[in-house]
């Protein structure tokens, strides 16, 4: 009851509920009536032996040994003063006299109570000159700031501003200094010499006061010991944002957000510090208000409802998430209602989306000439002049609307919102609509010792997508890329004007317009998740917590491809339709104990936690073909020809994953400047092999607040300087699908045996009972600083991360294996990098802030080892083809992942066949992985990424710009390769450049298709204005205009050099290979935010 408050603020009003003040009141009553004599004090003898102890410690010791209780005001006593005392069996008066002799502290003993106070000399003066000040506190936009602290400097006298940002405070004198603070804002001080004073606060650019969300808790930015990037709502990208990741694109060093095309409903991928796994475990863990999930969890929350995003980058920060933390963690905090305030807010945006670039294909006239000179019969020329790309594209529209409201009291707070996001894509018949309703409420109970936080998020997403894989054999890609391949002389319709044109002379002719018009590909994704968090204060500093969350998704996709679509598959099957149902249940529960305590200069914060998670995936699929009419599409599958039902037309699946974890973490802070964090997590996961279910993931990190040292106190240049170092071990198991370690027997079509057709079965997987998590060991060294009155701020981080026991589908020889790959932990790869973020306030005053900000990261990836053994037998897996279909891409020891090991283009021989360099001159072009004719020509992984993000605010006007780029990598241009061979000119169009190249055909994929992928993109330009009203109903209106993807500077000849780099290695992922993407749009967006009173 007598600890010195570590709160740098003051005594809040809430403090009145504190037991100490209640005691004081009681005590005064007792003292007034003086019922009891000081018998206890007279009788009790005290023995003390303390050296160089703080007063606080002395008081504590006395309280422990006796029944005496001290009562005092914090500011009256210098608790940090050290004394040495040695007394034996002394009366309390003697002891107190020794302790406080020579100080200003007076003491009084009333029975067991000891009251300490300052001499009351000043009291009269204070009474005399008391001054009352009132006013309004506003934020940088001139909007009232409720909840700001206003207090008298050097006292605990203070209050919080009300809903309208108003305050009224009575201070000791007109000379008193009044301090105004608000989290995230620079504090302001003024003298209480006027009765009415209005104060405007500005955001604190140093961010060091910010609260940072870390795993299973929060901490102040100044106490962070790991590499954590935090982006608050006010710093996020603006415009027609449909996915939360777009909010933070370019905002954090080492966090690469990669949007491939602008297909409605498709989200970007994100890589934190590169690709550290080879089987798809490089997606970071997403934690939304404590709910853990995969990247798709992000798509189910409205971007406008996000308060802040914190990204845990290094292992000392992520190890707390153990075997889910290896790829980094994205922590999302959604908006909640500010204490007691009531709000109604509308946020909306609309954008118009265009296609910025098209490939240069031959025009109708050019094609006719080229075809004729390449021996294409005249019958292949149908004489039309069709802009196939134009026919299949349109101007897109994106809209987003959110209405949110909230309110409450000190005990109850809630916030609710409704969001609608609608996208009509630039390719015809592609759209996405998303509706999300959220409720969040916090209730306090048990005399404020219990806090219940409830979250419920319910979303429905419907989308209409273009067909993902379509095309003649060898030319399969997405639909829009097929438009490029169309001969420009083919008409869209037959002469009757309604039948889609097809050329019966060609094998598998596809009319992409017919496919776009006739394909039905609708999906609906229901997404429900909720959580309940209960925190109970058990005792001072000790809190018990329970958290439970459940996410339930249900996705239904209906697909119908009629014969009229011209798709060969549909034609072959007489049209087909199917319905896919996929259900996911993700449950999580944790129980925790946290303990926070400050002992003088020592401060600890400890956490112990048990967590249980289960993710269940199940679903089914139904298909029918041979429909008499297309009217019912997939809605009446029973109308199909049931005699044509085949194996796999009816199927279902179910699998799950269970994790159990024990977590312990401790933070220790000494003198507010030496910080140590250590954590350990023990994780068990069901997906691992029987021999290796459990793993341990420790971490430790330290930080040194150098500016808090006394030797720094005499300089003014450096405002903040913090050195961080951390090491941690994390794992990856999420990339591993359930049942990956077992030998399984799976159905494999039908066979004929014993006189009838029966279901066939095969061993579908090579087992590996030793299968376990990947182990990523990461070391991080960081420096945070603020100079020149905090105008120049920055962070440096260097890291090295080595992933061992690399999970991968290693190629095994056939024979003896029935399948050509096995999941195993064999190799290791290393990522190293340097990240720099800088911000500089060029201008910073009341009216204007002009900040230049940017970040750059350099990274280097290397495959350290790919050789190992399975069951004691050496596996040589070096030179493994990798990349999900990208040709000539390999994993090679000593090279980055995704290295192009490729034949060198030489020329074209007399018959138009491409020739390549026979490097070893043996007359044979060896196309083997280790061929001496191949040469290493770079990797698909960028070696640097950067973003430049200047922003300007002048009074109520603001503007910002985001320029982003990356480089040092190559793209294999499959689109070019596919559209360049002149042998295809009879059936498809080719690029202008194909005529110059003159390659008729090629048995190789040479480096002629390899291109530099470096680029700079003007990703976002936003200008906005805030109108502030003194109105009864309206508080403010913000209008803004955003341009997206306004220009792109690159040497890449394809549509866009930003192609898939997510490293999942799944089939048709085409890592670093461009096989045709949905266009990336250029857009102009108009945004509005209205705040009501």
């Amino acid at each position, binding site marked *: 009851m007598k600890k010195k408050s570590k709160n740098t603020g003051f005594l809040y009003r809430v403090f009145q509920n504190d037991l100490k003040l209640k005691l004081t009141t009681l005590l005064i009553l007792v003292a007034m009536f003086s019922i009891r004599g000081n018998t206890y004090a007279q009788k009790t003898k005290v023995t003390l032996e303390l050296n160089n102890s703080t007063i606080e410690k002395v008081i504590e010791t006395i309280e422990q040994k006796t029944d005496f209780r001290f009562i005092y005001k914090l500011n009256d006593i210098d608790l940090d003063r050290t004394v040495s005392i040695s007394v034996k069996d002394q009366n309390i008066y003697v002891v107190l006299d020794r302790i406080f002799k020579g100080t200003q502290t007076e003491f009084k003993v009333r029975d067991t109570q000891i009251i300490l106070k300052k001499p009351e000399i000043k009291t009269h003066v204070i009474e005399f000159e008391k001054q009352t000040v009132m006013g309004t506190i506003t934020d940088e936009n001139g909007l009232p700031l409720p909840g700001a602290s206003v207090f008298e400097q050097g006292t605990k006298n203070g209050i919080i501003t009300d809903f309208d940002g108003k305050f009224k405070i009575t201070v000791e004198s007109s000379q008193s200094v009044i301090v105004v603070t608000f989290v995230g804002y620079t504090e302001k001080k003024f003298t209480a010499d006027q009765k009415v004073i209005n104060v405007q606060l500005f955001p604190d650019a140093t961010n060091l006061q910010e609260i940072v969300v870390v795993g299973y808790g929060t901490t102040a930015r100044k106490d962070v010991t790991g590499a954590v990037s935090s982006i608050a709502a006010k710093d996020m990208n603006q415009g027609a944002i449909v996915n939360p990741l777009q909010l933070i694109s370019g905002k954090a060093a080492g966090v690469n957000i990669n949007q491939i095309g602008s297909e409605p409903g498709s989200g970007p991928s994100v890589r934190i510090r590169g690709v550290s796994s080879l089987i798809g475990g490089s997606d970071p863990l997403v934690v939304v208000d404590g709910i853990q999930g995969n990247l798709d969890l992000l798509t189910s929350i409205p971007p406008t409802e996000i308060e802040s995003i914190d990204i845990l980058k290094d292992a000392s920060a992520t190890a707390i998430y153990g075997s889910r933390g290896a790829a980094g963690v994205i922590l999302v905090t959604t908006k909640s209602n500010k204490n007691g305030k009531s709000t109604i807010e509308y946020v909306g945006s609309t954008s118009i989306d265009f296609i910025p670039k098209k490939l240069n294909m031959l025009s109708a006239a050019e094609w006719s000439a080229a075809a004729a000179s390449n*021996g*294409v*019969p005249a*019958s292949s020329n149908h004489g039309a002049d069709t802009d196939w790309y134009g026919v299949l594209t349109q101007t897109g529209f994106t809209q987003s609307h959110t209405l949110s409201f909230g309110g409450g009291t000190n005990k109850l707070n809630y916030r609710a919102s409704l969001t609608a996001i609608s996208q009509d894509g630039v390719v015809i018949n592609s759209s996405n609509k998303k509706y999300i309703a959220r409720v969040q409420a916090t209730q306090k109970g048990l005399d404020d010792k219990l806090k219940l936080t409830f979250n419920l998020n319910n979303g429905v997403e419907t989308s209409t997508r273009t067909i993902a894989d379509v095309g003649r054999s060898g030319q399969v890609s997405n639909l829009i890329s097929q438009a490029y391949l169309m001969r420009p002389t083919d008409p869209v319709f037959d002469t009757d004007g309604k039948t889609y044109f097809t050329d*019966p002379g*060609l*094998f598998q002719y596809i009319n992409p317009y017919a496919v776009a018009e006739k394909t039905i590909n609708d999906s609906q994704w229901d997404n429900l998740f909720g959580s309940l968090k209960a925190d109970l204060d058990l*005792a*001072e500093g*000790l809190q018990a917590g329970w958290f439970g969350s459940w996410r339930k998704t249900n996705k239904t996709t209906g697909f119908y491809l009629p014969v009229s679509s011209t798709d060969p598959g549909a*034609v*072959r099957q*007489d049209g087909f339709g199917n319905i896919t149902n996929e259900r996911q249940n993700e449950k999580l529960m944790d*129980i925790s*104990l946290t303990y926070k305590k400050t002992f003088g200069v020592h401060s600890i914060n400890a956490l*112990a936690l*048990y967590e249980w998670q289960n993710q269940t995936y199940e679903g089914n699929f139904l298909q029918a073909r041979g429909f008499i009419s297309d009217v019912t599409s997939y809605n009446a599958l029973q109308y199909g020809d049931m005699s044509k039902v085949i*194996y796999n037309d009816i199927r279902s*699946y179910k*699998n*799950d994953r269970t*994790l*159990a974890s024990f977590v312990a973490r401790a933070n220790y802070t000494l003198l507010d400047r030496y910080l140590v964090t250590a954590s350990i997590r023990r994780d*068990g996961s*069901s*997906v691992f092999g029987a021999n290796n279910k459990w793993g341990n993931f420790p971490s430790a990190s330290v930080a040194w607040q150098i500016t808090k040292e006394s030797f720094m106190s005499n300089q003014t240049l450096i405002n903040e300087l913090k050195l961080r170092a951390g090491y941690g071990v994390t794992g990856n198991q999420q990339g591993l699908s359930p*049942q990956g370690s*077992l*030998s*399984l*027997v*799976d159905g494999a*079509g039908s*066979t*004929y*045996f*014993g006189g009838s*057709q029966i279901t*066939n*079965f095969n*061993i579908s997987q090579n087992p590996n009972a030793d299968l376990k998590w990947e182990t990523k060991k990461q070391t991080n060294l960081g420096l945070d600083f603020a100079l020149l009155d905090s105008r120049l701020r920055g962070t440096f981080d260097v890291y090295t991360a080595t992933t061992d026991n690399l999970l991968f589908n290693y190629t*095994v*020889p*056939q*024979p*003896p294996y*029935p399948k*050509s790959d096995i999941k195993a932990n064999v190799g290791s790869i290393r990522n190293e990098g340097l990240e720099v973020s800088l911000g500089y306030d060029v201008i910073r005053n009341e009216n204007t802030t002009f900040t230049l900000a940017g970040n750059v990261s350099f990274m280097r990836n290397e495959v350290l080892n790919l050789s190992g053994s399975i069951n004691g*037998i*050496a596996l040589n897996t070096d030179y493994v083809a990798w990349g999900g279909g990208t040709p000539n891409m390999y994993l090679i020891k000593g090279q980055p992942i995704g290295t192009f090991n490729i034949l060198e283009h030489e020329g074209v021989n007399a018959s138009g066949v491409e020739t390549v360099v026979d490097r070893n001159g043996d007359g*044979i072009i060896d*196309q*083997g*992985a*280790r061929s001496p004719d191949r040469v290493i020509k770079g990797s698909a992984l960028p070696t640097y990424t950067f973003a430049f993000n200047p922003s300007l605010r002048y009074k109520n006007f603001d503007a910002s710009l985001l320029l982003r780029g990356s480089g040092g990598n190559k793209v294999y241009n499959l689109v070019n390769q596919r559209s360049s061979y002149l*042998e295809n000119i*009879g*059936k498809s169009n080719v690029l202008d450049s194909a005529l110059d190249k003159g390659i008729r*055909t090629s*048995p190789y994929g040479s480096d002629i298709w390899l291109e530099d992928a470096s680029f700079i993109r003007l990703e976002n330009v936003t200008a906005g204005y805030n109108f502030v009203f003194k109105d009864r109903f309206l508080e403010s209106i913000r209008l803004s205009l955003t341009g997206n993807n306004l220009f792109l500077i690159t040497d890449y000849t394809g549509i866009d050099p930003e192609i898939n780099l997510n490293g999942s290695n799944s089939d048709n992922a085409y890592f670093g290979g461009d096989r045709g993407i949905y266009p990336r749009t250029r857009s102009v967006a108009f945004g509005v935010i209205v705040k009501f009173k």
Partner: protein
Amino acid sequence: MKIKNILIAGSVCFFALVGCTNIDETVYDKYQPDEFYGTPKGADIALASVYAQIGGNWDGVGYAGADLGWYDLNSMCADEQVIPHRNTGDWGTDFARTYQHDWLPTDTMINNTWNWLYKSVFNANLAVNQLELAGADASKIAEAKVLRAFFYYLLIDDFGNIPFYTDNNITVDKIPQANRQVVFDFIVSELKANVDLLPTGKGGELYGRFNKWAGYTLLAKVYLNAGVLTGTPKWAECLAACNVVDGGGFSLHSGAEDAANPLKSKYYELFGDVLPQDETILSIYTTVDVVSRNIFTVRSLYGAHCRALFGYDGWNGTIVPKEFYLKYQDGDVRKNQFLVGQQPGGANYTLDVTSLDDPGAGAQEGVRNIKFYPVAPRGGGGASNDFPIYRYADLVLMMAECNVRLGNAGAAKPFVDAIRTRAGISGLAGNPTLDDIYDERGRELNWEGHRREDMIRFDKFLLPNQFRGLSPEYRKIFPIPTSALNANPALKQNPGY
């Protein structure tokens, strides 16, 4: 004190949860091998899954699969069929390269063939093992072993020295690349030990399976090619094995005219739906899209022509080279399978093909083949015609060949004449020569997967043709696919590649 109590209580609660650590994996939607195969029914399924390997499907799987598998590799490198690149841009040049003996170790066809054969060996090993564990009938174990010998025979025939193993519980270092002779000896001894255990019945539940007669036919085939495979011919042994089959009650199916048949002869029932038991020794049961698929006609016909005949587009792929077509004389019912000239749907096939690769053949160039005239269910993805792996006509010609090779041409004549007579043409004027037999095998067994083997045995494989010159000797064996060499660096590539 209070804090302590809470701490203790809390800790007790916390560690009580240690019980909540059950993370055993439950498999809901798959079977696990031991429990699945460990029953008699499961062991049967293991045997069935070996047969499933023979049925043809997409992705180059199967004995007569759809595109880019064993059948295409072994047929298009011969002289009987090829898919030319078309000057309309259709079809790549990979089939043409195969025909021109210019295949690469990276070619899909070669890779598919290797993977298919070794997966088949794995399945056969599994079946042998599981049937033995389940104490199944000796005839079933023998059947699995004969199947394994069948796949090993195809492997040494195509690839020469190959990795050889019979137990799946083995690591790659224990599977050295075995000499062709070693595997040949294994095949012979395995067949000799097992063929007599096979059932002697035909059809019904044995349709599409190795019975004793199919087993002996395989043995005869192995002996027939012994000279090529090992350098030591075994013509007498071959003849002896053929004689066993000959005692199995087979006869040549009728070649009589049949107005109801689209090809106007009962002969084509041998390539129709359910293959007649009088002549068929071993076949692949086919129901398109369900079990196997037969694409040979749809792949050959021009789009509009196929549409006019069957209502779906043909692929305008495979043609029959002129030289091969000209081996047939008029009046031969076997010539009915070829289409030249004006056809329904506006097609007009020419005898000549001007170019295989650059600029490619004209859209309607080349003779087409409808030997496997599509039976229902059928569609753009193929038809349901069963496929003959072995039939008595093949055996008859093998007996003829052995007799000629053994210097007994007079004994060979009736065999060759029987085949010719059934086809509606006259017998040979004199005793058959090896060339007579070679040509007769070509005419009788075209498009049935035997041609490469025959051409090599008769020393015709390397000879030049309209679209290529003389091939080097090493082309008689295919290269080991690059992917297999990458996965197992201990493998040695065949010479020349």
